[in-house]
């Protein structure tokens, strides 16, 4: 706001005017003239948008631009890229890595990194496979055990980081190797364990499992539910805020947002129905996103995570148990890594030596960062896991459509990750210049 504070205004910061009774005017939600107020209506959006971009708040612009570029390039090279089947494929395959990215968003919000999520996801699928096939455990119970394993591993990382003071980078790098080793040991000489996929979580997460058994109502139901909850939620919020006399979102803006969501949601629904339906894995991924978004934005715990990411010392002085928040966050990351591992197992109906290896970790980190969650902590939303995964999965699906070799895929993914981090760093710098970081 540096550009505004300089502007001299009659209601400026002159302390001599302290007795000025205009303070009483606060009863009606008066807006400080120094604030760059958004004009009502559509024109206001454009001015606000321009100002934000200038200030380095790129939000989801890089993602949208990236998606358009990716879609154009691949569509020109292979006209199957924008087909319903391929897009639906992207929707299915992005869920697994997306689950890892959700956990990473938490860790990144603290300004830390978790390098072990890939290995933990592989280990999780191995644990599940072993207890189900060798010990005959009930599949749902085994799922619970698997998630608990992930949470415990994450909590262990968090404990080493928060209590012992080992940098998170090193702890999770050790985990990256160690848990991968444990997975190989569990899988034994065979290297692959096939998991029966007639029912249970693995079949639910499989490629041929769809919401409401492919009934076209399923997709529309989802889209309608999303639009309706945004509509009702926004208007309820507006009413409460208006009653309390605090600034509220104008109706025009709410309508615009709801319409935008409706267009995207129903377009996606039509697309999925043109293919085979909405994959259950994607539905679970979306439900997790909604829940986690709620946790991060609307609960004390979420506020604490942001506070620790924004200023450890300030958080500590506010009475926040920083160690507990850190351990919990790493435990959540471990839990989501384990869940993601189950998604991978669902894709292949097996636990393999390769699960969670290769570039899984890099893709998950890249997704969170591309989606707009800062590596420097304190800024981001869980939706970046969705947006980032759209980009990442489009690239890798597109590359395999073009029959690119793994070598090329790795190089491109590496470049994309670097690009995302560069955008993050540059936008942070211009945000600092604009006094917003």
């Amino acid at each position, binding site marked *: 706001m540096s550009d505004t504070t300089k502007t001299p205004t009659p209601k400026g910061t002159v302390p001599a005017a302290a007795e000025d009774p205009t303070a009483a005017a606060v009863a009606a939600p008066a807006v400080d003239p120094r604030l760059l107020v958004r004009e009502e209506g559509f024109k206001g959006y454009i001015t606000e948008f321009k100002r934000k971009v200038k200030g380095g708040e790129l939000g989801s612009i890089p993602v949208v631009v990236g998606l358009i570029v990716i879609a154009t390039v691949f569509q020109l090279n292979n006209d199957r890229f924008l087909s319903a089947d391929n897009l639906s494929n992207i929707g299915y395959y992005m869920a697994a890595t997306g689950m890892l990215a959700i956990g990473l968003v938490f860790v990144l919000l603290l300004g830390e990194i978790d390098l072990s999520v890939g290995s933990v996801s592989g280990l999780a699928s191995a644990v599940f496979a072993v207890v189900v096939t060798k010990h005959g455990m009930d599949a749902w119970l085994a799922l619970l055990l698997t998630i608990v394993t992930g949470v415990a591993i994450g909590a262990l990382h968090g404990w080493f980081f928060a209590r012992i003071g080992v940098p998170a980078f090193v702890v999770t790098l050790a985990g990256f190797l160690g848990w991968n080793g444990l997975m190989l040991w569990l899988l034994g000489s065979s290297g692959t364990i096939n998991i029966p996929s007639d029912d249970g979580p693995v079949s639910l997460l499989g490629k041929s499992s769809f919401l409401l058994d492919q009934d076209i109502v399923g997709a529309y139901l989802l889209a309608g539910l999303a639009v309706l909850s945004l509509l009702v939620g926004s208007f309820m919020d507006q009413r409460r805020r208006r009653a309390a006399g605090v600034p509220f979102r104008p109706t025009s803006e709410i309508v615009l947002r709801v319409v935008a969501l409706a267009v995207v949601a129903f377009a996606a629904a039509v697309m999925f129905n043109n293919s085979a339906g909405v994959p259950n894995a994607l539905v679970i991924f979306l439900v997790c996103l909604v829940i986690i978004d709620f946790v991060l934005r609307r609960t004390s715990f979420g506020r604490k995570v942001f506070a620790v990411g924004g200023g450890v010392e*300030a958080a500590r002085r506010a009475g926040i148990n920083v160690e507990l928040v850190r351990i919990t966050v790493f435990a959540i990351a471990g839990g989501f890594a384990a869940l993601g591992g189950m998604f991978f197992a669902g894709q292949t109906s097996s636990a393999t030596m390769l699960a969670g290896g290769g570039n899984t970790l890099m893709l998950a980190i890249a997704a969170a960062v591309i989606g707009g969650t800062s590596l420097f902590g304190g800024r981001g939303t869980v939706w970046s896991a969705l947006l980032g995964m759209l980009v990442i999965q489009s690239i890798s699906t597109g590359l395999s459509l073009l029959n690119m070799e793994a070598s090329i895929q790795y190089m491109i993914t590496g470049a994309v990750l670097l690009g995302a981090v560069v955008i993050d760093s540059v936008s942070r710098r211009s945000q600092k210049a604009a006094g917003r970081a």
Partner: protein
Amino acid sequence: MIHVSATPVLALRGASKRFGAVQALTDVHLEVHAGEVVALVGDNGAGKSTLVKAIAGVHPIDEGVVEWEGRPVSISKPHDAQELGVATVYQDLALCDNLDVVGNLYLGRELRRRGVLDEVTMEQKARELLSTLSIRIPSVRIPIAGLSGGQRQVVAIARALIGDPKIVILDEPTAALGVEQTAQVLDLVERLRERGLGVILISHNMADVKAVADTVAVLRLGKNNGTFPVKDTSHEEIIAAITGATDNAVTRRAERRTTEAAK
């Protein structure tokens, strides 16, 4: 000054504190009444910070009595002090840059409604609080990073008031501020007094002390070195108490200047 009650809200009697071989505080007395601004002054290492940390519960005292509204209490951890109604505003690192003003004001004691953060009530109350303190901030929904140093300091002080404290400790609130921001903070200190709060103000700046304090408590080498009512005490007397002598570089210089002026 408004009414000053007979029983001090907070009183330290014979407080002593050792750190290893160092006797940081020796038999220190301090009284703070409701509606009184007590400036705590002293040279570096005089024990100001130790005394404040003792009151805030960061470093409990070894000997002596802390009295709260006339009855002895024990403050052994920061939580005890907060429970009693002592709020401490540190000079730095008090706010989270990425959270907005409302988020910072309520950090660690968020209001909840059915288990969910009650943003509307928090925003409403934050606006009320800021307006009763005549604090002008462009919007309570912009991140702290977008505020100036002075605005941050007043937000930090306002934050201390959320818990309805009776004593507010300000640790060099104007140390890093410009002229205008300093004036804002001093205005705010006066408003705290008008609300009947006891304020302990640590400052190296005599002009600030003279401007807002009612009483000056001087510490020197971990001991009381006089408590003065501000309006009857000259600048030089306070300086003399701080430095521990009437004959020192500061008074010699002042003397030289008066004799020169007399010529």
